[in-house]
């Protein structure tokens, strides 16, 4: 019970600081509206159907890109993790590509695919694919050897070993990769919407609000993005605890 009080207090303190900065004109109040103005604007935009259109577009791009990355990334990670030679051959290039900040690749995507919806989805898919593959690979490689040895004493076949042991061993790591990726996917979609431009999407809306100096709206959209990110995390935590329930429990 005590914990929740502290958490709420911190939240309130931050809001008070915002009022303080505004009230004493430390930050120009045009650029930093009062928190209650932001909240009211947020409620207002929540009653506009356009907002849902934007939320839907952003979510769709995020989820499509992320799903595509998972569908390809998990099998690839499993394969390069399991077959040592293939893994050793490919991991340096994957590591290198992963080290490139994904946003630096946006011009490349614009040149080759254009500024379409598809281009944004491919950007997300490509970048998160590398993360998911890497975490899956690491999961397979870090398989507990005791369980493998135990299974071998029972005369387990290679296929069974992979399906019944190695796959489950790599699941916790795969989920870390997926959780990291879904957050990054949202970031990339918002950035891509801002840079590549789009008819809809939260990134576009935020950009346009700033352009039109509608700062309360800009802030409320940012808060909305925050909620979506938070929701993603929340949903993933629930799925995570359900599927890889044994992680962190001493076994």
């Amino acid at each position, binding site marked *: 019970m005590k914990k929740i009080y502290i958490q709420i207090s911190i939240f309130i303190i931050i809001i008070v600081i915002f009022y303080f900065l505004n009230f004493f004109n430390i930050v120009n109040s045009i650029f930093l509206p009062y928190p209650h103005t932001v909240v009211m604007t947020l409620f207002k935009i929540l009653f506009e159907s356009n907002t849902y259109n934007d939320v839907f577009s952003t979510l769709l791009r995020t989820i499509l890109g992320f799903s595509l990355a998972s569908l390809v990334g998990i099998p690839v990670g499993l394969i390069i993790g399991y077959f040592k030679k293939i893994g050793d051959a490919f991991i340096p290039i994957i590591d290198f590509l992963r080290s490139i900040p994904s946003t630096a690749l946006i011009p490349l995507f614009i040149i080759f695919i254009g500024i379409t919806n598809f281009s944004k989805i491919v950007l997300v898919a490509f970048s998160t694919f590398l993360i998911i593959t890497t975490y899956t690979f690491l999961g397979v490689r870090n398989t507990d050897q005791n369980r493998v040895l135990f*299974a071998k004493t*029972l005369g387990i076949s290679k296929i069974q070993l992979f399906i*019944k042991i190695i796959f489950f061993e790599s699941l916790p790591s795969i989920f870390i990769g997926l959780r990291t990726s879904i957050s990054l996917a949202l970031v990339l979609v918002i950035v891509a919407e801002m840079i590549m431009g789009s008819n809809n999407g939260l990134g576009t809306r935020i950009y346009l609000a700033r352009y039109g100096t509608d700062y309360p709206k800009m802030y409320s959209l940012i808060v909305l993005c925050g909620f979506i990110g938070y929701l993603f995390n929340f949903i993933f935590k629930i799925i995570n605890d359900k599927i*890889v329930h044994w992680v962190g429990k001493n076994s």
Partner: protein
Amino acid sequence: MTNIEFVNIKKTYLHNMNVNDKKIVEPTLKNFNLKINNQEFLCLFGPNGCGKTTILNLLAGLIEPDEGSILLNFNQSRKISYIFQNYNDTILPWRTNLDNLTFPLEISGFSKKEAKKKVIEFVNNFDIDINLGKYPYQMSGGQKQLLVIYRAMIYEPEVFLLDEPFSALDYDMRTSMEMELLKIWRKNKITTLFVSHEIDETILLSDRIIILSSNPANIVGEIKVDLPRPRNLNVIDSVEFNEIRKQVINIYKETKL
């Protein structure tokens, strides 16, 4: 009747210093010979790092000998249950207790349904006190140990290998596990090879004790344990038990000198 025979086994481990620069160390086993009788409970007793685990690994087929051969006098299939020292790491945490018990059966070709049926039969037979619906991490250390032992038995192995399985337990837990193991062994009469460096445990459990020296592991003594079965903890106080204990210590002392 002899069930297993090690003939002139040699095993050397290569310690990889570098990929191309392999350093050969002293053989762990050299000219190693051992006969294990059918349905015998045999203990290998010796100092840490003397090659006891190597002997079990060879028998389990996890490693191959450099020289010599291991003769098995049972069916072609090496149906062996092996409990590692770090048995905790062999539990499958993503499976319930029931599914952990069905695992060896699934591997040997039973369908999931048949495997479950067999496990439930086994559980009823042995009067087992484990909540099958729970996950291993929801159980105490002792229960997890039991789970591993049951999992090894369910497989109906021809040979049962145990590598210092109780070394991490406290005294109470250890003795109750020893009793439990004896109970199971009495029912199944499976040829058992038990590795230990605990003298009382060794005598309490075994039919025969093989005392090993280290590097390379040589048999320096062999003691028959004629204590009546079924045994319980009271046997530790008996004169015969202490006689055997003295013998073991004497052999141990002599090899050290």
